[in-house]
């Protein structure tokens, strides 16, 4: 077990290092953007003196590396500064938004991940059958349709033609949990349709890839029924690629859902980021980017650790 722990700690170290590098990239990339926060706050009419005074007040007259270090040291403890537009702390601006995004992502993931894996196992079992082909065509269709299009189609059917769900997933007012689930059902379903295909196809491919292994032939020659060959003999060895693609899709659920948020007017972090970019609200842009990066890295790290833990050679050393 000591080896596994060492491996995991090593991955964790790499993850933190990556995050550090990304934070540098984010900070300096935003620096390179044209425009100036002080100017943006005060507007075009401000005199150079007031701009300079505000720059000093915001610490913008300091050299970039020093500002980076001060930003980073605050960010580490959760202080991302103050929004340049509203003057409220960044945490207040995006904190609630991020929780909303996490909620929607979890909602979609709880449906999509088991669904994708179960479907993947079934199509692997029934490979080249009509069911497999139909599933292939449907998933290919859903994977290649833009998500806003899927969103509008779902609105058309389930909010307009059959008014079962609200077309707008606004979270105003206090909602009970079942109400919340009902109101956010359509955006969650859109996301499920988008990510299931990818995960299902990878599950299918990972399993089929193993079917030529001698131990699968051995299982067949032991009289093991086909479904058990897949579930008991192939699947346990296919986890590594499946976990990877699941992690990738979970990351997408958090960082790539701007369009779905727009379609359903859902108050998530994606919309907040787009707003901040258009208003040159650099502190918010930096914070949101860093959160996205951290999400990506964390999920990939989880995938790596998952792959390590599902490998019997690493779990049970000689």
């Amino acid at each position, binding site marked *: 077990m000591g080896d596994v722990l060492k491996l995991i700690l090593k991955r964790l170290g790499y993850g933190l290092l990556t995050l550090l590098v990304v934070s540098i990239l984010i900070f300096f990339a935003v620096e390179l953007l044209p425009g100036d926060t002080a100017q943006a706050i005060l507007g075009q009419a401000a005199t150079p003196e007031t701009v300079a005074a505000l720059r000093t007040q915001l610490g913008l007259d300091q050299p970039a590396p020093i500002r980076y270090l001060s930003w980073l040291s605050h960010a580490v403890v959760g202080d991302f500064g103050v929004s340049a537009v509203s003057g409220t702390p960044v945490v207040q601006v995006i904190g609630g938004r991020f929780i909303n995004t996490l909620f929607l992502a979890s909602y979609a993931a709880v449906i999509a991940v088991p669904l994708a894996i179960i479907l993947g196992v079934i199509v692997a079992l029934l490979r080249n059958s009509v069911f497999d082909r139909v599933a292939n065509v449907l998933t290919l269709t859903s994977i290649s349709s833009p998500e806003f299009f899927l969103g509008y189609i779902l609105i058309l059917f389930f909010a307009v033609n059959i008014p079962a769900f609200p077309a707008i997933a606004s979270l105003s007012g206090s909602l009970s949990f079942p109400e919340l689930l009902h109101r956010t059902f359509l955006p969650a379903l859109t996301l499920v349709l988008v990510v299931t295909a990818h995960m299902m196809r990878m599950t299918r491919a990972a399993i089929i890839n193993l079917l*030529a*292994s*001698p*131990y699968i*032939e*051995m*299982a*067949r*020659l*032991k*009289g*093991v*029924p086909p479904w058990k060959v897949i579930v*008991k*003999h192939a699947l*346990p*060895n296919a986890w590594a690629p499946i976990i990877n693609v699941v992690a990738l899709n979970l990351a997408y659920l958090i960082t790539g859902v701007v369009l779905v948020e727009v379609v359903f007017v859902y108050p998530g972090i994606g919309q907040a980021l787009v707003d901040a970019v258009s208003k040159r609200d650099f502190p918010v842009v930096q914070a949101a980017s860093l959160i996205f990066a951290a999400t990506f890295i964390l999920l990939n790290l989880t995938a790596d650790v998952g792959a390590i833990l599902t490998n*019997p*050679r690493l779990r*049970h050393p*000689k």
Partner: protein
Amino acid sequence: MTRFAKKDILLEIRDLQIQGYTDETWIDIIKGVDLTLHRGEVLGLIGESGAGKSTIGAAAMGYARDGTRISGGSIEFDGIELTNASQAEKRALRGSRIAYVAQSAAASFNPAHKIIDQHTEAPVHYRIQKRLEAQEDAMELYERLRLPNPQEIGFRYPHQVSGGQLQRAMTAMAMACRPDLIIFDEPTTALDVTTQIEVLAAIRDIVDQFNTAAIYITHDLAVVAQMADTIKVLLKGEEVEEASTKEMLDNPQEDYTKSLWAVRSFKRPQKSRPTDGTPPIIAVKNVDAAYPGGAKVLDDVSFDIYPGMTVAVVGESGSGKSTTARCITGLLPPLKGEILFKGDPMPAKYKDRSLDQLRQAQMIYQMADTALNPKVRISEIIGRPAQFYSGLKGTALKQRVDELLDLIELEPSKYYDRYPPELSGGQKQRIGIARALAAEPEFIICDEVTSALDQLVAEGILKLLDRLQRDLGLAYMFITHDLATVRSIADEVVVMQHGKVVEQGPKEEMFTPPHHPYTDLLLSSVPEMDPEWLTTVLEERGVDNIGDAADV
């Protein structure tokens, strides 16, 4: 055939035809084979690769591998016709009444489950035993197969157990439901001789004890002679002949069978070291080596290879043979010691060596399949080293490639533009040899170059290497675990064990007692054609020693 009565027929295959799907068409791979097996009989199926042995073995279970189909004939197992049985009917036989033991136990055990869980799968599935009973039974079988720690070994994962032990565990697994018939598909081919002998003994014992019928598939005649009551020889999907083991060994009828029997006859006279003070072309001096982060794998290894001679380096897998080769080629710089070329030390890393020093470290690999880039034309595979080392271009280069192809007895015009996957195993190995020759070396390392080849093909390669040695004055370091090969071509032998040289000297001396105990173990473990060989060896060693011998 006298031992077996007609009423005891267990498996009867008539006019079996199997087709394989290649290049968009179905091609016959088994062309009408008959086979009769009685209860308790062991039938040896032998032939070269591609003869269809394994395909027939699988067909005896009513199983056609992916890309093959049973296209004709009948397979009757104990009154059940398998060719038109439903999948469910056939599945009900597999594991319970017909079991299978695969070539590589390491690959055929599922890495994700404990050995004993895989063992009990079939008996529990067929409700022959409850899980705990099945586990008890597994432990008893492990004990009978003389596995160490029979109570505990099953609770390990496959990668935690050695190859020879896994192969015995797989035989135990096949026995789990006490089947009527077991198909052994080259069960010892992937093992070292010292391990092979104990697996053979274990298989023979258990088949005897339970009076199980078996089809024993192998390409090794000496092995089949120990195991089988009857031998059937196959060639390209057709039967050559069948007879009782004794008859087949004493009096083979067909030319093909005779050629198989005679294949180990190639032998050339032993050469001795030059006496005029010529330095060895390669001298390994007190080399210690380890892989990064690993324990020491070579410990004070020293030996010399003189010009024009063949030095065979023998030992089990893991004894450090290939690592020594990596040190000589500079791929793995030694921790201590040095490699001398004609008396001068060579830089430890290949990157620091001159072109002329690199030229000397040519290798021919075991798996020509993976050692040749499948997407590169033969002309380029051979041409590139010729260009790199000798700076040849244009017509001169083409001429040189033609010359090399001539040397390896492949017609240049026919092979120049072809790709490796279009060639047979033996032809690929010849290309590997040509590639090594293209550098114009005086010394070549041959790493198990014949182990992946059929005996007839292997003999051709050995003859070719011998001719090239005479014509070009080459010295070989010949890494092998096959002592028959050593007997036929070596001048000197170096025996390695656990990263040390335990014995070395001229071949004749090495094959004459007294030996180092390990050399003795190696030599006495090589199966001989005498059907009584296994019994005799086991008696000589005492049964209790076998398990120990394998775990050395």
